[in-house]
Each structure stands twice: as structure tokens, then as C-alpha cells.
């Protein structure tokens, strides 16, 4: 956005924010370092859950860097952030709610035709 661009050292473009070379290379380099870090972290055994947590923290950090700097969201309209964060919240709810009730499912029983399930217990529904 034009009014944001003035706050930045690169303001050659009047339509949209121009990312500086320093920002781009810095972000790219950090992402590569974090990739090396996440691979290295799996070589060390902290226990399955902690290893998973470390990998996810690094992945979220990387994702945040991509969104803020490569995708310019830091300099973009607030409304775009609202749109995108809403989508991430919806996705998190989707995953979270599925996990919450995942233990409520019974195991699927596939009955063989020759061994039908036993008759249900209780009174037969009338009507």
C-alpha cells in the first residue's frame, strides 16, 4: 500500500510495498537454516512427543516468516491478514474438533454374511 511504502527504504513503487533485498535474502536464509535445524533435531531423541513439538514449532516459525515477509502480509492491508488468519483458525478448529471426538468412535465392525450380528438387546421399536 502506498502509504505504508513511505516508511520503508525501498519506496520506488507507488502501488504496493517493495520488499528490500535484505529482507528477502534474510528470510530465505533463515528458512534454509531452520530446515537444517529441523532435520538435525530429528537425529536427537527427545521422546516422540517432544520431537514432534520441536518439528511443529520450527514449521510454524518458518510458515510465519513466509507469510510475513515473502507474502508481504506484514505490509499488506489488515483485511488480508483477517482473511488468512480466519482460514487458519477454521482449519485449526477442523483438526481440533476432529481430535476431540475421535475417541468417541467405535471400531468399525464389518460383518461377514455368514455371521450376522446378534439381535439387538432391548425392546423392539414399535410402529
Amino acid at each position, binding site marked *: 500500500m502506498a502509504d505504508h511504502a513511505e516508511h520503508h527504504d525501498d519506496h520506488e513503487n507507488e*502501488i504496493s510495498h517493495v520488499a528490500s533485498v535484505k529482507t528477502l535474502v534474510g528470510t530465505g536464509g533463515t528458512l534454509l537454516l531452520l*530446515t537444517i535445524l*529441523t532435520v538435525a533435531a530429528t537425529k536427537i531423541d527427545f521422546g516422540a512427543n517432544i520431537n*514432534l513439538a520441536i518439528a511443529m514449532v520450527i514449521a510454524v516459525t518458518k510458515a510465519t516468516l513466509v507469510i510475513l515477509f515473502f507474502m508481504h502480509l506484514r505490509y499488506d492491508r489488515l483485511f488480508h491478514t483477517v482473511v488468512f488468519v480466519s482460514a487458519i483458525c477454521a482449519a485449526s478448529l477442523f483438526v481440533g474438533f476432529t481430535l476431540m471426538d475421535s475417541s468417541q468412535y467405535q471400531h468399525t465392525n464389518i460383518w461377514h454374511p455368514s455371521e450376522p450380528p446378534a439381535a439387538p438387546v432391548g425392546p423392539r421399536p414399535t410402529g
Partner: protein
Amino acid sequence: MSGGHDDHGGHGDQSPFIQHHYDDAQHQFDSGKFGIWLFLAQEVLFFSALFVAYVLYRVHHGEIYSYAHKWLDVKYGAINTAVLIFSSLTAAWAVRAAQKNQKGLLIACLAVTCACAFGFLTIKYIEYSHKVHEHILFGRYFDPCVSPGGEELLTKKNLCPGSKGSVVWDEGSAKPTEGCFEASKLDLDTRLAGVQADCEVTLVKVDETGKELGPASPASVTNRCPDELLAILNGEHDTAAGTGKELVKEAAPKFPCWRPAYQPAVCPDLTTPEQRTHGAGGKPQVGILVEFGDHEEREDIKVKAKCKDATAPKPLDALAVSHETQSEHLGQAAIHPAHVVTTHEEHEIESLGPPPEHTSMFLTIYFAMTGLHGIHVFVGIVVFIWLLIRAIKGQFTPDYFGPIDFAALYWHIVDLIWIFLFPLLYLIH
């Protein structure tokens, strides 16, 4: 944009690509950008369905993930992560170049991004083709030739083509090619057509001249499915023939016929259903699994098969094993493997055993997630080629670079999804 509206386009100070229904370049850009952000939000939701499948399965069947992820090569995953991050950098740089009217730099950035996308798909192709070759696939196509540790598995159909299957004998030319023995040459247990030959296989160390130096480790492989269980699992018998003993179905393991390397096995001739059975003119064939992994040097171990019957396999080939066969009595035949294994390689083999039940689900999820992601990469290639052509034509200007920006945003979301897929699929501890 200073932008007065220019209906003629192409001259004045405004890009000819500014559509007349927008107030100015800023208006057009903002509209497009809002559109692409809505699309990206949709993409997040789109992929979240697959992440739900992933998480749910991982919660319930963690053992599948810790077993099957070893089929995936961290090296390829990490290289692809780096390739995508680098291409994200060049995509972001392309936007900057377009904003600053640096045409040459813009073309270079777009070309590098496109090349990286090709590189990503090439690496994916290498990974996928390896899995197709080894039958490490989704759903009912899951019938792996090797365990994640590189150990040979006897597959349900024993159809591992070429490399990993059986020693291969051509009955006509009496030479090993890559298939199997003809079953009639072996002491087959006819109850178990299509399943098992009664051979014991040993490994012998040999020197360069083929001289035997003694048993190699493992000296012999006796570990295999009990005949009775195999018969039941193949739905052929409820009692073990000859023993009269009633067998309990529950005794059958869930994945019955995963057997280690060197296990003789019948390769069914699958031309017609009739040919799969004895006596119908078919030729069920026998092969011996010999190859570990995907390696090159297999010089100093020889595989020998010793079968039950004196009339058993007499490899008729005239290859390197002929001196072997003549010195042995009829019941024992030296099998010249299509490949033999070096002792060095044996240490690389991690014994992980057969896959746990439902392992195919990991591969289903893997192929669904990486496949959908791969389709996105392919779409990215098409888009970047289109942008490259337009950039070469000089159609992008500091007041008209929306397509570059929007394509770059799309490309970043592709990168973003891979940032999660990589640790979730490849880096399971």
C-alpha cells in the same frame, strides 16, 4: 499511480493492461490481491481436510507412521524443501523486480522459480517411481517388495518386477532372466499352489573366482510362514491336509506371508486364472528372493537353494553356476541370483519386519497429500511459464505487476504447505 485513465492504452503513463472498469492501477491491483487472498484462504481449508485425515490416523495408529515413514528418504524431502524455499525467494524477488521495472532481473527470477518447480517435480518423480517399482503404494496396491529397512519381503503377489523379485529363470532358454522357476521342477506342496515351495536357501560367501569360502551370515533362512497358516490364509483349507488337525483361524497372523529375503516362493503365472492352479495347463513358478535394497555391488555372496525332493530344481542354465550344479546331487541346486549381496550391504539392512496392519493408510495419506501438493506445483509451472512469456514481451510495468504478485503469493502457499508436509511425513521420529 499518478494515473489518469487512458482508454487507448499503450501510451501515456499507464499500462495498457489496466482495465477500463477499474478507477486506476491501484484499484485493479487491490481487487486482484483481495481475490488471491480469498483463494489462498480457500487453499488452506482445502488442504486442512487432508491434515485432518493425517492427524486422526496418526493419533489412532502411530505405529504405522513410525514404521512406514522410513520408506521415505529424508534426503529427498530436505532437498525438495530447500528447492521450494529457494524458489519462494526468487518468486518474491520477481515481484520486487517487477515493481522496480527491472525487466532482466524479473525474467531471471521467473525462470529460476520455474526451474526450481521442475526440479521439485523431478525429485518427486524419482521418489514416486521408486515406490511404484517397489509396490509401496496406496490402498490395495500396497504390496511392498522391501521393508523400510531394505529387507526383502515376500509380497502377496510376488510380482516385484525386475530388481526385487525373484531369481528369474527362463524355461525356454534355460537361463536366468528375471522371473521364476517352473513349479513342476520343484517339490511343491500342491496344497499351497501359488504360495510356497519347500526349499531351504543358504547363502555362501564366494571369492572372485566363485570359490566357496563358507557360509555367509545369515547362514540360512528358515523363518517362514507355517504351511498350515498359509493354507488357511489362502482360503484353501480349514484343516492341514495329512495331519487331520483342525486349525484355529485366529492363529493366523494378520499379515501372513511377509517373509524375509531368500525365501523360496512361488510366483503365480498370472496370465489367466486357470493357469494359476496346477493341472490346468498353467505353470506356477518358483523363485527365490535374493536382492537387498537398491544397491550396486553384489559380488561376493552366492545363494543356494536346497529343496526337499531329489527331483527338485535343476537350473538348466549354462551360466556361472553350471559348475555348481554338476557337483551337487540332484536335490540341491545352486541358484545364481540375478543379484547377490555384499557383506557390506548386509549391515545396512535394518530388520523392521513386515508392515503392521493398515500400513497402506500411511501411503494413502502420503500420496494424497504430496500428490495434491504436486498438482499445485505443476499448476505453478504453467503459471510461471505464462508469466515468463509475458515478462519477455515486456508487459509488466511498475503500475501493472499484479499477475506476478498473485502468482508469487500462490507459490508461497505451495511452499508453506510443503513446510508442514516435510516434517509431518519425512521426519517422524
